[in-house]
C-alpha cells in the first residue's frame, strides 16, 4: 500500500508539469494585457509599453516559462502584478474560507444526500422515492446563484437569522464562523446533494437485489441494519467515486457562491485575477486546484480499499 501511495505521488509530478505548461500557454495566448489595466485610461501607449517591460511581460514565452518554473521549484509562486503581494500570501489569506466552505458543504451533502438516496432506494416506487427524486432534479436544475439569492432573501433579509454576506474566521469563534457559512454551504451543496442522492439510490438498488441482502433479511436483521450496515457499505464504492469527482463541481460552484455571499475565498480570487489578467495569481491558484484535485483522487482510490477489501494495489 505504501509503495502504491508513493508511486501515485510520484506520478502527480508529470501531471502537474503538464498542467503548469497548459496554464502558462493558455494565459500567454489569451487576449488581455495587465499593463493596460494597470496603466488605466490615462495612459499613453508608451507608458503601457514601459509598464509591460517593468513587469517582464515583453520577454519571450520560453524565458518567462522557464523563469516561472524555476521559481516554483524553489517554492516561489511569484508576486501579484496588481497588489505587489506574494501569490502564496494571497492564497494563504483565501484558503481558509474556501476550504471551510467546501468541507462544510461536503459534510452537509453527505449527511443529507446518503440517507436520502438510501431511503429512496428502500422505498422505491413510493411517494417517498418520488419526492426525493423530484428534490434531486430541482437541486440539479436550479442554478447556484438562484438558490443563493432565495436563501439570503428568506433567512437573512426576511427572518434575520443569518448574515447576508461575509466570512468570519474560525479563530473568531465557532458560531460566528458557522453563521456565515450555513447559507453558502446549502447553496453550494444543492447540486452536490442531488448528485450523491441519485448515485446512492442507483447503487443501493443494485445492491438491494443481491442474494446476501435477502439472506440478511431472512436472518431477521432489522431494516436499518440491513440498509446501512450491509447494503450501504457495498454500495459505497461508486458513491465515494462521485464524491471525489464532485470536488471539481464544488470548486466551480465555489466561484459563484463566494461571489453571491461575498466570501473572500479562492474562487473570487481566481475570478478577480482573470478579469485583471493577474497572471501569477491565476497560475498559482490553478496549480493549487489541480494539485488538490489529484490529491482528492488519490484519497478516493485509497478509500476503495477500505470499503471493498477485494481491491488491492
Amino acid at each position, binding site marked *: 500500500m505504501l509503495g502504491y501511495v508513493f508511486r501515485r505521488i510520484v506520478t502527480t509530478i508529470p501531471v502537474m508539469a503538464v498542467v503548469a505548461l497548459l496554464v502558462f500557454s493558455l494565459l500567454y495566448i489569451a487576449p*488581455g494585457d495587465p499593463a493596460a489595466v494597470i496603466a488605466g485610461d*490615462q495612459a499613453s501607449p508608451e507608458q503601457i509599453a514601459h509598464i509591460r517591460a517593468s513587469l517582464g511581460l515583453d520577454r519571450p514565452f520560453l524565458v518567462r516559462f522557464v523563469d516561472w518554473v524555476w521559481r516554483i521549484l524553489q517554492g516561489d509562486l511569484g508576486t501579484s502584478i496588481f*497588489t*505587489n503581494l506574494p501569490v502564496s500570501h494571497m492564497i494563504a489569506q*483565501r484558503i481558509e474560507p474556501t476550504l471551510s466552505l467546501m468541507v462544510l458543504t461536503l459534510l452537509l451533502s453527505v449527511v443529507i444526500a446518503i440517507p436520502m438516496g438510501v431511503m429512496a432506494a428502500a422505498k422505491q416506487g413510493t411517494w417517498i422515492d418520488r419526492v426525493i427524486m423530484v428534490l434531486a432534479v430541482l437541486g440539479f436544475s436550479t442554478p447556484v446563484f438562484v438558490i443563493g439569492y432565495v436563501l439570503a432573501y428568506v433567512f437573512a433579509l426576511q427572518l434575520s437569522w443569518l448574515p447576508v454576506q461575509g466570512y468570519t474566521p474560525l479563530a473568531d469563534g465557532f458560531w460566528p464562523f458557522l453563521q456565515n457559512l450555513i447559507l453558502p454551504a446549502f447553496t453550494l451543496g444543492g447540486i452536490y446533494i442531488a448528485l450523491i442522492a441519485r448515485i446512492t439510490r442507483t447503487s443501493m438498488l443494485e445492491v438491494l437485489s443481491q442474494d446476501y441482502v435477502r439472506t440478511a433479511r431472512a436472518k431477521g436483521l432489522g431494516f436499518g441494519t440491513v440498509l446501512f450496515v450491509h447494503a450501504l457499505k457495498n454500495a459505497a464504492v461508486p458513491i465515494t467515486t462521485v464524491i471525489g469527482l464532485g470536488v471539481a463541481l464544488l470548486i466551480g460552484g465555489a466561484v459563484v457562491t463566494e461571489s453571491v455571499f461575498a466570501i473572500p475565498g479562492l474562487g473570487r480570487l481566481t475570478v*478577480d485575477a482573470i478579469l485583471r489578467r493577474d497572471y501569477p495569481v491565476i497560475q498559482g491558484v490553478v496549480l493549487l486546484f489541480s494539485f488538490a484535485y489529484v490529491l482528492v483522487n488519490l484519497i478516493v482510490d485509497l478509500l476503495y480499499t477500505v470499503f471493498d477489501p477485494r481491491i488491492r494495489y
Partner: protein
Amino acid sequence: MGMNRRDFLTLAAGAGAVATLPAPAIAKESETRVLRFVPQANLPNLDPVWGTQYVVRNASLLVYDTLFGLSSNLEPKPQMCAGYETSADGRVWTFRLRDGLYFHDKEPVRSVDVVASLKRWMARDAMGQVLKDRLDALEVVNDKQFRVQLQKPFPKLLLALAKPMPNIAVVMPERIANSDPFKQVAEYIGSGPMRFRRDEWVPGSRAVFERFSDYVPREETGDWLAGGKRMELDRIEWQVIPDAATAAAALQSGEVDWWETPIADLVPLLRANGKLRVEIADNLGNIGILRFNHLYPPFNDVRVRRAVAMVVSQDDYMHAVVGSDDALWRPMPSIFTPGTPLYTEAGGEILKGPRHWEEAKRLLAEAGYNGEKIVMLVATDIGITKGQSDVTADLLKRLGMNVDYVATDWGTVGARRAKQDPPSAGGWHIFHTWLAGLDCTTPATNIALRANGRKAWFGWPSSELIQTLIGQWYDAPDLAAERWVAADLNKAAMDFLPYIPTGFFLAYQAWRNNVSGIVKAPFPVFWGVRKQ
C-alpha cells in the same frame, strides 16, 4: 463542594448578566466609530501614481495628503501648504509646508519628501509632464520650503498639484518616492487623516483604514479635498461586495453603512426601505463617449465621423445607460461637463435637433465607404459600455455600415484598444467607455480630447488646432480667458470629432439613516461623516 443544575443555571445567568450588562453601551460607542463602506470596485493597490483606477484614487485620498486640495467649486486651495510666494514674472514659486505634518511612520514631512514625490508624479501624469517640460528646477530650500523654477509661467500649477483626477500628486516619504514611477511602491505610507492597515488587507475583499492620531487638520471647514479633514470615525472598513444584489441586501440588513455605487435597477428597492437614504452621488456625473480609431479608414476621414455624429441620438444612448429615470441624464453637445465653468455648446449643433439620416448617408458615400467591416470592441461585462455599444451597432447598421460586434470583457478591450495595428490585424475601429465629469472640467484632464497623434489616448486623433487650443488654455491667465479658449476648443472638437459624447449621466449613492455628513462629490469624502 457540589453544584446542582439549578445552581449552575443561576451562576451561568448571573455570569451572563455581568458579562453582557455593560457591553451594549461599550459596543454601541465603538460601533458608531466604525464605518462599513462598499466601494465601487476592489482596491488592488494603494499607489495613486502607479495605478490610475478611481478606486485607488479614492482610497489614496484617505491615506495620503496633497499640497493643495480641490474644493467643491473646483478651486485649488492650500492643504499641506501653509502658503506660497510667486515672483512677479510668474516663473518662481516658493511653497511653505504647514506645521504638524507627519507621516504614518511618525517621521515629519519635509520638503525633500515633497520634491521626490513630485518628481515621481511628473513622470506619470499628463499635467505633470507639461509642468516637467516647463521646469528649470525643483529644489529644496529647507525642511519646510521648496521652490519651483519655470522656464515660462505655468498658471495651472496649483490646479496640477490639487487635481484629484489620476494621477494625483500625493506626498510620500522620500525613500519611497525615489522608486521607479513605473513600478508599484513597496510601502503605503502617507500623511493623510487615516492610515492603511496593511496587515488587515485582503485584496478583493477588505481594506481597513484607521484614524491617524497625529494628523492635524486645517482650521478651515472641510470642503471636498480642501480645508480641515476632521475624522469623526476611528475606523473605516471597505468591504468589497462584487454582486450588486448582495450589496443591496447587506445595506438593508445593516451589515454595511454606505454603498458607493448602487445600480439604477436596485434604487427603487432601496428607496422603499425607510432606513436608507438614496441620493445622487456626484453632480459632476459621467460622460459617455464613442471613440473612433483615427489611424485607419473609414474613421480617419472626418466626413465619416461627422456622418455618425449627425445621426447620434443622446436620448437613445442615455436610456440604454440609465434606464427610464430621466432625472439621471441630460444631453450635452459639448466636451465639457454641464454645470461647470467652462461648459459651452459652441459648435455643438451637429449633436442637436433632428437627426439627418439622408445627409449622413450621402456623406458616407462621398467618403467612399463601401461596406468594409467596422470592428467594434464591446465590453459586455460592463453595463454602461454594453448599453452604448448596442445603440451604436444599431445606428451604424441603419446607416448601412457592416458592423463586426466583438463581444468580450473589459480586460480584453483594455488590451486590444492599445493596439495600433490595422483593424483587420487585431486592431479596432470603435469602442465605448465613459469619462468622469470631473475629468472633463478642464481640457488638460480630458484624456479623450488630446489630439497629438500616436502619443494621444487610444484612437490616436491628430489635430494641430486642438493641441494649440489646449496649449492656450494652459497659458490662459484667468477664467474669462479660459472660457474664450473653451468655446474655440468645443467648436474645434465638434468639427474634428476626436470622439462623440453620448450624453451626461448621474449615479446614485445609498447609505443608512444613522450615517450623516455624506456630501456629493466625485469621490467619497469621509471626513465629516458621522455614525449614530
